[in-house]
């Protein structure tokens, strides 16, 4: 009981003494936890919603038969249905259709249409059945009726009985909204109709997207799967629920992990702030702690007390962080959507659910990092000899424990090793660790670096000393580098992260700009409303487009999704004319290419994106099999190109090869070069005047470029925000540590007043000291930031997103940031110097602490 009372008194006394520093520490932990928790909630909401949406489409199916290509011949259905293990089979056609009139206003103007056999689907995917009006019970079989999920109805602003016009390629399809669905995940936008009607309306007569299978009880799934796979051949894949979960998980994993890491950076910066705050507090309380030890407090009691103080900070900060995190997640979902602007989860409006497990994790993380930040200073406080600590002037002894040259060296060495290690589970775990180690190593090296630098400066100055202020500043910086390093640590952490992120984002943006220039050589691009439209433009429609007056050259392209691995998102296959001798004329190649003469006779070349090399080992010169047309074809990888548009892999091949193998004469995109002297707008007008002009998405090169860069900025908006908050927490830490140092040194300032320094001189001394420290921190932070940016650019990005980029240093931006940092630090020193020049300082000389 007495122990608790004493603990409470000491705690409240300490909190009274440094309200501002504690408030800053609580805010730092709160922000770190809030960011981590909110991002986790948003990501979980999005993935759960996406997963639920996928599951609702497969219902109670045991196995899904899909083709590697988007569709397959429906004549395979009887063969599958007749398998003795199959109890129920439900064929389905999935088509993405454009929503007419929405393309200018919505980013994803597409609606998923599922065609199903009502009688077969009832046993496997009952949720997808339509609910017709009471007087139109046979609408589920009607040729023009479509049943929409609530989210789709709300999004399209239609009701039962309304007309809905959709587009597929150049074709328009008008359907009647026949009703809603039995049950659909709340945020999923989907429409369901009779499979025959869907095949007919959307030009897919005789084609299916998948077959859902339910097996007889007792049938061995693995054995059946193996048997069916061998019967169906290479062009088919058999997908289980676990594959589906993995695919959903893989879809945005790297992006989600990156956001989580950024949120953890904010928490790390917060932990550093707590560390700095606790170190300065224990330095200031050194004699007080020694007295408690003299009066009979054991080391364990002191340690417990100091950890309790830190732990309480963490508890309050983490609890507030959870509340703020939940609010931020709700706001983020509302304004930015499920993917926070990255474009992974189009067509979903997920709802937020509080997760006690996640809350527990982030609470423990918040309290944990605070305890970690408090542990070292608390440990130092307990190991000090009370008799020594009671004497004033022994404060610098306390900071000796902060000199860790071995730790710094060890961290930097490990970081150098880690950057060379491969990803773990396709995530750059070692890359992230290397960044953390660089930061820790850099901070740990600071006292030594600061001591060496300012010591040398001080020696040079000693030869020609000028004025007390400068002498005092240099003497302190060189002889008390441990204390100086506390403030420097915050500057270093914040500035290096700012520099690293600025270099990475600018390198990425400039690389994307270069890439856009390379991949958008034509003047105008024409495509269907939605990408990879299943129908595209027929040869007759292509002829009409080609015959528009004023066109110098036109490249036709066909692209489709291909599923190579059921655990991964689909890749994109693009067929277009490519100069096999000089593929770099068409594609942004990254390395050497195989010329046609180096290919074996009759081998068809393909050029793959960097992601294909990492994910599927499609290296240059390798023979690969791809499902195309009726069978699997053999190709040879002739080169690797850089693709910032498709993270999960893309393959480019000759359009002629594609047409020969598939017989598909349709195309989805056209790149148009305008004749000299012809106005681009004139061509656009002529294209709009075509019979299907309304269904065309026509984009002049500059517009695509601007939209792409706007999307880039939008997808980085959250990254910028998180980075900004991490830097804000860092700056808060700098202000807090300057202010705490001013309090710690108040007797020193009082003494200087007594011996004749004016208050202005003391303020000037502090500002010069703070300015020199910040300047030094900025220089070291710049070096560290560049090193971190190299890891981000050359390790983390390629391992996370499978793309490389060229390094660009945005010098002017870096100079502005350095100036802003210096100004912010000097302003906080100016503010923190107020108590140093107050009457309290003069009085403090007479105090015994």
């Amino acid at each position: 009981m007495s122990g608790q009372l004493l603990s409470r008194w000491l705690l409240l006394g300490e909190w009274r003494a440094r309200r501002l520093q504690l408030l800053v520490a609580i805010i730092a932990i709160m922000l770190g936890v809030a960011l981590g928790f909110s991002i986790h909630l948003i990501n979980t909401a999005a993935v759960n919603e996406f997963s639920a949406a996928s599951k609702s489409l497969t219902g109670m199916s045991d196995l899904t038969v899909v083709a590697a290509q988007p569709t397959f011949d429906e004549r395979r259905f009887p063969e599958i249905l007749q398998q003795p293990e199959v109890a129920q089979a439900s064929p389905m056609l999935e088509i993405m259709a454009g929503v007419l009139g929405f393309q200018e206003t919505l980013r994803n103007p597409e609606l998923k249409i599922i065609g199903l056999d009502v009688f077969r689907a009832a046993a496997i995917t009952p949720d997808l059945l339509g609910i017709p009006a009471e007087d139109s019970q046979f609408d589920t079989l009607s040729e023009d009726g479509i049943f929409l999920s609530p989210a789709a109805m709300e999004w399209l602003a239609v009701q039962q009985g309304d007309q809905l016009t959709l587009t597929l390629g150049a074709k328009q399809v008008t359907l009647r909204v026949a009703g809603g669905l039995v049950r659909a995940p709340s945020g999923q936008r989907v429409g369901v109709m009779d499979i025959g009607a869907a095949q007919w309306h959307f030009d897919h007569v005789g084609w299916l997207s998948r077959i859902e299978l339910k097996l007889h009880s007792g049938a061995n799934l693995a054995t059946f799967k193996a048997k069916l796979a061998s019967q169906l051949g290479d062009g088919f894949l058999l997908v289980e629920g676990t594959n589906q979960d993995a695919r959903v998980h893989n879809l945005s994993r790297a992006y989600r992990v990156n956001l989580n890491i950024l949120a953890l950076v904010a928490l790390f910066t917060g932990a550093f702030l707590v560390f700095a705050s606790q170190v300065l507090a224990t330095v200031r309380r050194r004699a007080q702690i020694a007295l408690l030890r003299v009066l009979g407090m054991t080391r364990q009691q002191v340690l417990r007390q100091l950890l309790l103080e830190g732990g309480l900070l963490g508890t309050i900060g983490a609890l507030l962080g959870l509340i703020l995190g939940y609010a931020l997640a709700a706001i983020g979902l509302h304004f930015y959507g499920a993917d926070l602007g990255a474009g992974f989860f189009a067509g979903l409006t997920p709802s937020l659910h509080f997760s006690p497990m996640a809350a527990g994790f982030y609470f423990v993380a918040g309290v944990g990092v605070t305890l970690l930040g408090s542990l070292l200073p608390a440990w130092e406080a307990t190991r000090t000899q009370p008799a020594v600590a009671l004497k004033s002037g022994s404060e610098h002894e306390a900071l000796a424990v902060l000199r860790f040259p071995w730790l710094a060296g060890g961290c930097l060495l490990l970081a150098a090793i880690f950057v060379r290690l491969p990803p773990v589970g396709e995530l750059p775990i070692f890359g992230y660790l290397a960044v953390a180690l660089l930061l820790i190593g850099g901070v740990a090296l600071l006292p030594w670096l600061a001591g060496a630098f300012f010591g040398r400066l001080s020696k040079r100055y000693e030869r020609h000393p000028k004025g007390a202020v400068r002498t005092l500043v240099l003497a302190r910086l060189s002889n008390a580098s441990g204390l100086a390093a506390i403030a420097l640590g915050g500057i270093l952490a914040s500035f290096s992260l700012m520099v690293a992120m600025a270099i990475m984002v600018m390198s990425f943006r400039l690389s994307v700009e270069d890439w856009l220039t390379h991949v958008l050589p034509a003047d105008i691009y024409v495509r269907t409303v939605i990408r990879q439209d299943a129908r595209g433009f027929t040869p007759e429609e292509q002829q009409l487009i080609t015959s528009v007056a004023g066109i110098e050259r036109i490249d036709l392209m066909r692209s489709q999704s291909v599923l190579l691995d059921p655990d991964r998102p689909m890749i994109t296959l693009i067929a277009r004319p490519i100069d096999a001798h000089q593929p770099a004329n068409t594609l942004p190649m990254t390395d050497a290419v195989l010329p046609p003469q180096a290919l074996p006779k009759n081998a068809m070349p393909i050029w793959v994106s960097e992601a294909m090399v990492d994910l599927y080992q499609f290296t240059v010169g390798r023979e690969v099999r791809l499902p195309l047309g009726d069978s699997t074809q053999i190709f040879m990888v002739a080169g690797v190109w850089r693709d910032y548009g498709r993270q999960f892999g893309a393959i480019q091949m000759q359009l002629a090869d594609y047409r020969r193998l598939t017989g598909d004469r349709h195309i989805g995109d056209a790149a148009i070069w305008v004749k000299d002297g012809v106005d681009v707008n004139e061509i656009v007008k002529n294209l709009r005047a075509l019979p299907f002009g309304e269904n065309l998405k026509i984009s002049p090169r500059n517009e695509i470029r601007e939209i792409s860069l706007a999307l880039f900025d939008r997808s980085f908006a959250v990254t910028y925000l998180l980075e900004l908050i991490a830097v804000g927490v860092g700056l808060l830490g700098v202000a807090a540590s300057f202010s705490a140092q001013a309090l710690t040194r108040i007797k020193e300032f009082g003494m200087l007043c007594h011996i004749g320094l004016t208050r202005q001189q003391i303020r000037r001394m502090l500002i010069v000291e703070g300015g020199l420290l910040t300047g030094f921190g900025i220089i070291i932070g710049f070096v560290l930031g560049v090193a971190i940016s190299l890891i981000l650019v050359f390790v983390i990005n390629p391992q996370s997103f499978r793309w490389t980029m060229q390094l660009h240093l945005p010098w002017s931006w870096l100079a502005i940031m350095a100036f802003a940092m210096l100004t912010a630090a000097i302003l906080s020193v100016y503010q923190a110097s107020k108590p140093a020049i107050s009457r309290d300082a003069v009085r403090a000389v007479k105090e015994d602490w």
Partner: protein
Amino acid sequence: MNTIPILELCNISKAYASRKVLSDLSFTLAAGEYVAVMGDSGVGKSTLLNLIAGLDEADSGKIFVNGQILAAGDEVAATELRRKYFGFIFQAFHILPHLTLLQNVSLPLLLNDMPLDRTAAMLAAVGLGDRGHAFPYQLSGGELQRVAIARALVHRPRLILADEPTGNLDPDTAQEILQLIRAEVKANGASAILVTHSHAAAATADKVLTLTGNGLTETRR
């Protein structure tokens, strides 16, 4: 009557690096005895107090407090012994700045898990009965030392160790404080060792010992 001495030092030696501070020192303090220890600067007076309090360890020799040996290396035992048997008064007061006077004086009671009802009386005894809820920054140096005296005696320790308790005070206040220490030590039945440079301060003790390189010798007054 209790015949066990409150403190017994047997052949204590202590050196820092190559400098020998205490050499083969022996000394006994009877219960209720109040002694002053004088000596030149650096002769080892503070070291002696630190060794007695278990804040430092002797290189050789033994220390008994109330008959219990102060075991070398057993820090927890030393802390518990110090907590229970010792009271401290420092030259620099060392009052925790963010606790009230009542809270500061209560610290030893809390650490010993004793009731706090003696705190107010102790503050009243040193003349600060009406200032219990004040904070240290509101007090003068003399008043702060009175708080330190109250804190040193509140848990009825057997031995008070006072290291230059009047070093920071003016002569009049110093005399007042010394008389107060003596009165309170005697009133509480404690023993005390007063380390000082001041002959006037030493004069308030029962006997005066001088610490030299040859050990402790009693000085005739």
